[in-house]
């Protein structure tokens, strides 16, 4: 008798459970929207296409960027498999250093009058109006809805027009076949590539980049990654707290990466 009652109730219980679950989700979202949504995003890989609700960007405080420190560059190389490139046989090492793909470079600026030296990491600035996308003849260079400028390697023909168009020298060309590839960072001969703000992390719901993490781990905290659209987020807070500018702001590209102290 009790067994029968229990089995009769089973489907009802399931409905009730799912309803209660949904209700709990709704109330939790309304109580603490920012927090809960963030946790949901952390929990699972993305199932909906990216939208312009987010615009990913970064603030780099050059006063905190240490001379001689290359933590961000090395972290980027490892995260995106750039350290797996091998020197072509018989190639001059210096030539290779200029040819190999890099997504982020340390650049040193010197003011000739005062002699003041500024260090900064320079990568794809993820422009709102990216010149690389404008010039791409095949549409391979594109801006994702959430503001990340990327290359669709399936469509890239390796003409390198985008490399010419980029004011930041952010893009690299893969000249040789790559023997070892990472699952998260496909790479092959004949395509252009550049920083994609660790898009594989974002798509998994992990809002971080390898460079910013490495910078923080070194104790410099010169890079803040986040959502430019999220007014209460860490990036907007940091941008609000100090003056910052776009590199080559005169070009009107509205870059996603901003710099303080230059």
């Amino acid at each position, binding site marked *: 008798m009790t067994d029968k009652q229990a089995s009769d109730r089973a489907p009802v219980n399931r409905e009730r459970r799912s309803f209660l679950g949904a209700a709990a989700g709704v109330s939790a979202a309304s109580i603490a929207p920012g927090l809960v949504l963030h946790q949901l995003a952390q929990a*699972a*890989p*993305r*199932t*909906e*296409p*990216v939208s312009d609700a987010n615009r990913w960007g970064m603030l780099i405080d050059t006063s905190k960027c240490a001379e*001689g420190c*290359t933590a961000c*560059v*090395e972290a980027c190389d*490892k*995260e995106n498999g750039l*350290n*797996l*490139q*091998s*020197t072509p046989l018989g190639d001059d090492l*210096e030539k290779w*250093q200029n040819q190999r793909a890099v997504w982020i*470079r*340390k*650049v*040193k*600026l*010197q*003011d*000739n*009058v005062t002699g003041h030296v500024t260090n900064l990491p320079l990568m794809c600035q993820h422009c709102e109006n990216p010149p690389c996308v404008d010039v791409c003849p095949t549409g391979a260079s*594109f801006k*994702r809805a*959430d503001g990340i400028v*990327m290359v*669709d*390697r*399936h469509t890239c023909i390796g003409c390198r027009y985008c490399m010419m168009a980029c004011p930041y020298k952010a893009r690299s060309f893969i000249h040789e*076949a790559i023997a070892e*590839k*990472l*699952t*998260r960072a*496909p*790479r*092959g*001969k004949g*395509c252009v590539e550049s920083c994609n703000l660790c*898009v*594989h992390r*974002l*798509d*998994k719901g992990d809002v*971080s980049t*390898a460079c910013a*993490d*490495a910078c*923080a*781990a070194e104790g410099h905290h010169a890079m803040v990654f986040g959502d430019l659209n999220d007014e209460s987020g860490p990036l907007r807070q940091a941008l609000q707290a100090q003056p910052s*500018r776009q590199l080559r702001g*005169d070009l009107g590209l509205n870059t996603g990466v901003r710099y303080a102290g*230059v």
Partner: protein
Amino acid sequence: MNLEASMAKAIQRGGLVVFGLAGVLFALGVQAEAIGGFVVESSKAAGLDQCVEPTEYMRRNHMELIRHQRDTTVYGGIRSTKHSLEGCVTCHTGHREDQTPVPINADGQFCAGCHNYAAVTLNCFDCHATIPTGESWNQAPAAGHGQPGDQDLGQVPAQVPGHQVQGPHQIGRKAGSAFALVAAHDYVAADALREPVGARSEPVIERAEGEPR
């Protein structure tokens, strides 16, 4: 009499021919059956009932599924559906006796085995990894097989004891800090080829006073 004898002979011959043809067809049939067996014994797929879709469907349409998923992933950022190339590699990579993975496009392995037979050139692996490296960003292949979707690539398939996937994330990401993630990489050989970045000739951009920054 003669006529009857010759007719009987003709029938006999015809019968032989028919029998011979049947034999050839039978042999072909057996061969065709054998062609199906490209799933590598030492792969995770060998222990599963079927692929993410029924086998017959996958044989004919896997390329369409992969291509569709490709655009979904590149433009939409969706890495959670089950029809990913990464899923193919994760599941179908064979392993040597010492449990190291064999590239999936190596001779006789899952992709190359069939593609060589069908004489269809495969260029996915010009760019994509041929062995599972790093954490599985796409958890759905596992979920598609009714396994826990939350598992890491490093998880041991039942028939491959001690299977280790090389890569940082199984060590780093779950361990917590981003620094552990960075430190977990160990590409000594590749790093040794490279000078420290600071030693490179970095551009010193010099500015005159009053020049727009």
